[in-house]
């Protein structure tokens, strides 16, 4: 009887672990790769603008007097953050970015009429400095964390801006997914939490970074 109970318990534990593992975000789903990052013009333009901004960030890091505006506090975060281990860098960046003002980017959802009478949907992605100046919505938080962690040396292949449908909030929500050394994935949330073990409350929609776009299907 005891053995049967233990076996039953073990089976349930295995089922729970398997279900959690399946529910967690995976970086290694090759069938989900949709296209190169350049296939999405608004995202590609954001990457280009960030490349230009990186020059200002580099100059500021090399010479403090070259820092103006938000670059001063950003420089401080980068200098101090460089001395921390990876886990603490993630916590620092998550907290630092989450302090920014939340603001719905109306340009992201608005339609504008262009010459000829056609309406086109304008999508807007913020760069790191644009976000630090103006704030933004959850997508902007995730993108800012991505760019800041890149400055701290996190590889692009281990990070993705991940758009999800969050079942609790019943709304679409973006987080930054991080692949850890052990293959697990952590999600950096805009409420200061880092979701490590259980991603069941999310339905994954799509993800992107500077290397590509992944379609998780909706």
């Amino acid at each position: 009887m005891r053995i049967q109970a233990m076996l039953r318990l073990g089976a349930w534990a295995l089922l729970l672990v398997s279900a959690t593992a399946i529910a967690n975000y995976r970086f290694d789903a090759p069938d989900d790769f949709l296209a190169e990052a350049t296939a999405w013009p608004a995202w590609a333009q954001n990457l280009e603008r960030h490349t230009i901004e990186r020059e200002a960030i580099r100059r500021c890091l090399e010479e403090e007097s070259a820092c103006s505006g938000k670059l001063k506090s950003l420089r401080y975060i980068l200098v101090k953050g460089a001395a921390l281990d990876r886990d603490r860098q993630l916590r620092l960046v998550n907290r630092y970015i989450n302090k920014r003002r939340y603001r719905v980017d109306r340009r992201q959802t608005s339609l504008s009429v262009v010459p000829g009478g056609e309406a086109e949907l304008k999508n807007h992605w913020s760069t790191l400095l644009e976000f630090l100046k103006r704030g933004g919505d959850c997508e902007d938080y995730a993108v800012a964390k991505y760019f800041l962690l890149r400055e701290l040396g996190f590889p692009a292949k281990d990070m993705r801006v991940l758009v999800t449908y969050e079942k609790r909030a019943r709304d679409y929500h973006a987080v930054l997914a991080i692949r850890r050394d052990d293959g697990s994935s952590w999600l950096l949330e805009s409420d200061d939490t880092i979701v490590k073990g259980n991603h069941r409350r999310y339905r994954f929609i799509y993800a992107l970074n500077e290397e590509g776009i992944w379609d998780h299907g909706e």
Partner: protein
Amino acid sequence: MKILIIAVMCLTGGLALADEGDETQTEGPIEELQIRLTTMEQINVTAEKMLVESSEDVDSEIESILLDAEALEGEEAEE
């Protein structure tokens, strides 16, 4: 001679059909990609979340760094 002409015409016609088939195959995936990207772009991603108290132990060094960074931003605002 007639056989040669017919053979050339068949070959030309076959190549033309093959080209049309290739064009159809390449247009399909590109159109599908554009449609999918447009659908993704139209998803309204704006969920807001309130900051919550972390269940992890307070990291005093991280807190200190964040406070100092905030102080620098206060100086920026005054300038």
